Structure formats: structure tokens, C-alpha cells
């Protein structure tokens, strides 16, 4: 650091260099550094905007998640404290909704947001805002994992919001979208016609109504329809129809970054540096090995074992309604298996039992940040 680096114009010049670098090479590292520097330089709005973009683009990056949480907590600490105090002293449905919304939108903490919304609904079961927010969070979760439980809860809360206020556009729109996605075209039509009653100029709603005209629903049991999607994936025709009526639930439109297979394969050998590492491998969504190293034994057999354990864990997590698999550490006498899901891939490292978890975690985090590509 130079003697005059504290001067405002020098600080700005440094930031401009980082901005250019982040544009040229958009990665978890460049965006995290830029956000940190913005914050240190007092450019708080730029810092917040930067971490928001970073977390949308690299939701699986450990570095980005850490910086996002730090900056957003600092940015919102006064509001969080004020709302929390209001809830403790004079709870209102609106306060619960505002606090839950803050956790959802700004802090990217869907769990806390859902907890707060549920807590609020226990006290204010008729609150339109809280039903709408709970429905929205379940909607976001459903779009990520396609779990039938999220879908059904989403419908339940949105219908409550819609009952409280039949002209609640967001509730009707999300319901129409959800029903279309699972093939409940008749129920989607009801919601769309309701929208057209109070928003007759809604072109997208009208287009979808026209497309759904005369279409037979794929079933009448809504639970069955959601289960079918969970087991067999989204029906392409339903998805195309639903896309006629898009819902802006996401904070940004950028597609999340995925692992670059070539980078992933070339960097898998980095795990050899982890003391006690016996094997490491990266697999794509179908279980195909993208890159691996094994100190001894057959890596094909190991890959099969890891994939089976991963798919079993994924199934367990879904059945327990805790979302999809993110990380796991399995310990058996003499070995430890670390698994992480990131950027549409599974990364697994097998170590001796004496290798510290923290060392492997750091290596995995660094690997993910290196191989995620915007």
C-alpha cells in the first residue's frame, strides 16, 4: 500500500481497477474483493449491490456467501434490531412480515424468513401479508428443488392470501403459475380469469388463458400432480405454458454459475495437497466422473459407492422436507468421506480419519471458488 493510497481519488482509482477486473473476469474471488473494497471505502450502496449480484450469480460459492452475510448484516443491523424489538414489545402482523421479508430479500436467509412468517401466522392466522410471504418463500423453494411438500404448502398459503383479498394479484399470479406447472390447467384458468376481472389489460394472463382453453388437466388430485413432478421432473409442455406467464420472484435474472468441467478436472489434483487425502472426485448430475484421483484401489468402484451414498442422502433429505443435499461428512472406521454439491456437480474427498475436517472444508471451499464459472 502506497503512502498516498488513503487519498479519495486514489481509493476510487483502486476501485475502478477492481471494477474492470470483475467485468473482465467475473468470479467469486473478484466480486467478493470488489464488494469488500466498496464497503471499506464507504461506498455502501455499491457494496450491497455487488454482493447481491454475486450471490445471485454464485449461490454455491462459500466465499460469496460469507461476504454477502457479513455486508448485509452490517447494512441491515439497525433495521433488524428495531423490528426485532417491536416484535418483542408490541407484535403486529406487519412487523413480522417486514422482518421476514428483510431476511428473505436482503439476507438471503429463507429459513429464518420462513420461521418468522410461521411465528407471525401463529399469532395472526388471518394475515394476508404473512400468507403471501410464506407462499412466496415456498414458491422459491419449490422452484429450486421441486419438492411436492413445498408446492402444496405454497398453494395452501397463497389460497389463504387470496381468500383474505381476492384481488391480491401476486397470490393469484403465483397460483396460476404453480397450477400450470403441474398440469392443473382448470385451476390455473380459474386464477387467471380472476386476475382478468380486476386487471383486464394483463396481456400475459390473457395469452395463457387462450392457450389453456379446452386443455384437459393432467389430473384432479393436486397432491398427486405435485408428486408426479417431484418423481418425474417437470413436464416440458407445462413448463413452456407456465413460461408464458413469468413470475418475478427472483432478485435478479442471472443464471447461477455452474462448475466448469475442464477446470474441475484439472484442479481435482489440488486435493493431493490435503494431508491424508486418499481420493477425490467430481461427478456431474448424472453421476459421470468429470475428474478424479485415487491414491490406491479402483476409482470406478469408489465413484459408484460415493454416487449411491449421495443419491441416498438426497432422497433422505427430500423425504424429511429439509430441501436438497448440500454437504455431508461420513465417518467410518479408518476413513472420512466429505461431499459437497455445488454448481450442479458433486465433489467428494476421501481422507484418513485423522485429517481435520476444517482442512478439508477449506480445500473444498477454495476448489469450488476456483472452478465455478459465470
Amino acid at each position, binding site marked *: 500500500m502506497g503512502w498516498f493510497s488513503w487519498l479519495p481519488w486514489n481509493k476510487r482509482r483502486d476501485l475502478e481497477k477492481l471494477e474492470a477486473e470483475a467485468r473482465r473476469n467475473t468470479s467469486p474471488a473478484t466480486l467478493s474483493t470488489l464488494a469488500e473494497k466498496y464497503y471499506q471505502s464507504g461506498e455502501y450502496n455499491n457494496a450491497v449491490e455487488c454482493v447481491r449480484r454475486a450471490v445471485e450469480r454464485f449461490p454455491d460459492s462459500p466465499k460469496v456467501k460469507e461476504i454477502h452475510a457479513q455486508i448485509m448484516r452490517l447494512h441491515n443491523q439497525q433495521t433488524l434490531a428495531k423490528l426485532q424489538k417491536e416484535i418483542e414489545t408490541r407484535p403486529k402482523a406487519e412487523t413480522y412480515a417486514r422482518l421476514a421479508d428483510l431476511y428473505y430479500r436482503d439476507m438471503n*436467509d*429463507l*429459513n*429464518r424468513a*420462513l420461521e418468522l412468517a410461521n411465528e407471525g401466522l401463529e399469532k395472526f392466522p388471518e394475515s394476508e401479508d404473512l400468507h403471501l410471504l410464506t407462499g412466496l418463500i415456498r414458491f422459491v*423453494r419449490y422452484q*429450486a*428443488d421441486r419438492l411436492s411438500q413445498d408446492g402444496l404448502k405454497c398453494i395452501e398459503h397463497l389460497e389463504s392470501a387470496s381468500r383474505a383479498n381476492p384481488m391480491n394479484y401476486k397470490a393469484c399470479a403465483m397460483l396460476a403459475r404453480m397450477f400450470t406447472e403441474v398440469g392443473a390447467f382448470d385451476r390455473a384458468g380459474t386464477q387467471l380469469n380472476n386476475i382478468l376481472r380486476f386487471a383486464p389489460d394483463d396481456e400475459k394472463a390473457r395469452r395463457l388463458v387462450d392457450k389453456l382453453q379446452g386443455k384437459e388437466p393432467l389430473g384432479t388430485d393436486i397432491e398427486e400432480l405435485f408428486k408426479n413432478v417431484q418423481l418425474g421432473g417437470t413436464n416440458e409442455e407445462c413448463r413452456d405454458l407456465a413460461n408464458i406467464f413469468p413470475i418475478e420472484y427472483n432478485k435478479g435474472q442471472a443464471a447461477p454459475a455452474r462448475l466448469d468441467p475442464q477446470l474441475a478436472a484439472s484442479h481435482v489434483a489440488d486435493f493431493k495437497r490435503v494431508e491424508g487425502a486418499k481420493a477425490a472426485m467430481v461427478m456431474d448430475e448424472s453421476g459421470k466422473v468429470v475428474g478424479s484421483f485415487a491414491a490406491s*484401489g479402483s476409482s470406478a*468402484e*469408489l465413484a459408484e*459407492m460415493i454416487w*449411491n*451414498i449421495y443419491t*441416498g*442422502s438426497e*432422497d*433422505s*433429505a427430500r*423425504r*424429511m*422436507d*429439509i*430441501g*436438497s*443435499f*448440500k*454437504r*455431508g*461428512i*461420513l*465417518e*467410518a*472406521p*479408518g*476413513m472420512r468421506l466429505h461431499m459437497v454439491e455445488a454448481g450442479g456437480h458433486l465433489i467428494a474427498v476421501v481422507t484418513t480419519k485423522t485429517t481435520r475436517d476444517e482442512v478439508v472444508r477449506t480445500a473444498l471451499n477454495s476448489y469450488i471458488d476456483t472452478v465455478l464459472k459465470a
Partner: protein
Amino acid sequence: MNEILSELNQEVGVKGSMVVTQDGIVVATELGPGLSADVVAAVASGAIQSINQNLNKLGQPNLSKFVLEAGFGKIVFIDIGIAYLVVILDQRINMDVTLIAISAAAYRIRQMGQIRA
């Protein structure tokens, strides 16, 4: 045993705990609201069986501990003899602290000697 599970459930972020055999027989259960004993037992025993089968295929012994982190929650499985301690956790908890409490509970259950083969 239920007393140990109840104490464990007092830890921050613990939503419920259960002792279940690999065959799905529930030995003791203390689950919080929203968690069904039948579902947890079925999911846990299915996961343990499948993991052990896969480990055994490669000549590895059965799992001693498995920490599964998902998007909205965590599950810990710990071998306690012929059964497993299964703990369901909130997603945001500090695992390092809670794992100590879980391991301590597993040790106490093992010491009780009630569920040896």
C-alpha cells in the same frame, strides 16, 4: 433414554432426536412439532442401510457418524451399538458446538448398556 434425548433437544437448533435400529425399529423418540416418528424412522433406517451396504461393498465397516446438511436442515446419524442416534437440526446452527452435545448424548446412551446386541 428419553431423558437423554429430551436434554439433547434443549440444545440450540435441535428439532428432535430418536434412537432407531438399522431395521427401522424405534427404541426411543423425542421429536419436536412437525416431525413424524414414522417418517423419521423410515428415512433414517433406509439411509443407514443403504450407506452401510455401499460401504461394505468396498470392504469398509459400517458408518460410525454421518452429518448430512441440506438446504433447510441437517441430520446427524451416530452409531451407538446395534442402533443409531438420529438428530434433526436447524440449518443455521453452529455444528461444532452441537456435535459435542450429540456425541456426549450418544456416549451416555451407549453407557446405559440397554441396547447392546
